[in-house]
């Protein structure tokens, strides 16, 4: 089995999601080649062939020429699978390639089973198992679904590629993420403070962890009532209902009013000294510890990742 993995370069960086694609290929025991529109000095770490096009010429978003470049490589490598990350780059480019090749694309793969690919359906409430009917198959992998592998000391053999395809869409540059007003309902990661934080100064511990994780901080009702945290950060029946990927409940016992506002979170970590606190019922992980010691230690370690 042969796979062509598509790495991504953005704004001066090689994105780490290539390591998950490498992990997936390893799990499938596939032979690999990697495709990248990037630069010579930032290469993914693996053993094998890297097809490299110059990002200076082909830009970071230029689906027409990226597609043309990929087609060249597919013709040469004849891979069984062309694998993207299900990222803004992957879901944009993958269908273009699939159509040009006349093959199927399976989006947001989370697992492999019975020679088929498993993907989420209905907001991840269901799973669908899909079989490809085409000679080759384009896959996009859900971010985080497969374990990344890291080969610190290996470097690929670089084979430059080029094309003179004229683009239809013209990339003009980036706009930085907006700062300002918080909307917890849109946050992918929320770290929330409960009564257990003890005093207003400790909100800083919570917000520091949120920042280190790239998320937002929230609070339970008592903390907001005490005016330690502003109301638009309140989670619960009288605050926001949230459904982040990760919800870290710090010093929150788990009153039903609070649970109602966060029970749809995908993964819940509770930090509490009371192992029988009701929050433990819906937590995926309960850390029995004093949050004033544990959270700063955790934040420090996450920062240094």
């Amino acid at each position, binding site marked *: 089995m042969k796979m062509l993995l598509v790495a991504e370069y953005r704004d001066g960086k090689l994105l780490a999601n290539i390591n998950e694609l490498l992990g997936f290929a390893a799990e499938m025991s596939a032979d690999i080649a990697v495709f990248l529109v990037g630069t010579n000095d930032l290469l993914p770490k693996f053993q094998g062939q890297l097809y490299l096009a110059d990002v200076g010429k082909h830009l970071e978003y230029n689906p027409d020429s990226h597609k043309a470049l990929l087609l060249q490589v597919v013709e040469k490598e004849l891979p069984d699978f062309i694998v993207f990350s299900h990222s803004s780059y992957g879901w944009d480019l993958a269908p273009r390639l699939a159509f040009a090749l006349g093959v199927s694309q399976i989006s947001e793969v989370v697992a492999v089973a019975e020679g088929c690919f498993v993907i989420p359906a209905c907001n991840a409430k269901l799973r669908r198992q899909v079989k490809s009917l085409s000679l080759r198959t384009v896959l996009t992998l859900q971010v985080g679904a497969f374990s990344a592998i890291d080969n610190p000391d290996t470097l690929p053999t670089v084979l430059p590629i080029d094309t003179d395809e004229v683009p239809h869409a013209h990339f003009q540059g980036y706009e930085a993420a907006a700062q300002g007003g918080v909307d917890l309902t849109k946050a992918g990661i929320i770290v929330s403070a409960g009564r257990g934080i003890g005093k207003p100064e400790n909100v800083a511990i919570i917000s520091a962890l949120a920042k280190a994780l790239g998320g937002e901080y929230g609070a339970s009702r008592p903390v907001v009532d005490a005016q330690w945290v502003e109301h638009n950060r309140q989670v619960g*029946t009288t605050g926001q209902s949230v459904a982040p990927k990760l919800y870290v409940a710090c010093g929150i016992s788990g009153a*039903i009013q609070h*649970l*109602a506002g966060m*029970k749809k979170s995908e993964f819940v970590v509770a930090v509490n000294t009371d192992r029988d606190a009701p929050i433990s019922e819906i937590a995926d992980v309960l850390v029995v510890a004093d949050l004033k010691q544990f959270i700063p230690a955790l934040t420090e370690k996450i920062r240094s990742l």
Partner: protein
Amino acid sequence: MNFELTEEQNLIRDMVREFAETEVAPTAKIRDEEERFDRALMFDRLAELGLTGIVFPEEYGGAGADYISYAIAVEELSRVCASTGVTLSAHLSLCANPIYLFGNEEQKQQFLAPLARGEKLGAFGLTEPSAGTDAGGTRTTAVKDGKGYILNGTKIFITNAGDAETYVVFARTDKQAQKHHGISAFIVEKNTQGFSFGKKEQKMGIRSSPTMELVFDNCRIPASQLLGEEGQGFKVAMKTLDGGRIGIASQALGIAQGALEAAVNYAKERKQFDTPIAKFQGIQFQLADMATQIEASRLLVYSAAYKASHGISYSQASAMAKLMASETAMRVTTQAVQVLGGYGYTREFPVERMMRDAKITEIYEGTSEVQRMVIGSALTK
């Protein structure tokens, strides 16, 4: 016979529900606590969505929809905020509708169209200290004087009062006539000299809907603002209230539905003895009874609304709908508080507000006793 809503009715329900949940619900609690009427939200937004003139023809600024659509709109608003529901009901059923039914063409253009478009808010002044249910007891007087009438008297418990621009008011034009004869209806505008507002009521429920006294002190009204014929006021009032009952019945239905949903959600989450209380038969039976009574009320309300839209006599139907829906609302909200237990009694959950809001539906626009009188006398006449 067809029990399915039309595509339009379904779309209207979806639209009003989405609006109610995203814009009205978030402030329902705080408006109740502050006893604050938020006109921009509770009326101006309704106008933008075309809800303030649902049942009236387009030539009078309405949307040309039917009474079932109206019932659905009031129900959906009341499901999250009974005060917003009654604002619309009093405006449309009690003020705009009598002008539509009894007004002449000029009155419809001058008064109905701005009401239907939601540029003006309407209210209805019938009740007096000595005349509530008994409209015949009206003591406010309107004395003919040259080309107009001079009004004197006081109206109490008037929904939308103070904020409304247009009022349909009842006064006695013939002091000699007995009981319900000799009463006439008038259209009175805010800021008319001699028309002012008395005290604001402090109420148990629907606290975000303003309720005030109207005071007429030698208030001169041009004859062109007489609604219907002189002496026809009692008929105007009774016809208006027939329609108003559909509005209040829909409000009650919405309150009950909101309370049921709150109770069901809570029962699925709340655990006792390691089991969600929704799994206990005692709770399930209560929820089943609540849901069944609500569905029975809904059928009565929609059937009365259907009759109103199709020119079928509906006094009795609207009385039955209001009686059933309001008593259901009271019972269901009380049970919802019980299902939520201690939490239900706190103001953190909405069911205590719903229980307070429900009570008025058994009282205004004809108490339950009056509805029984209407139904009973129709049966035995």
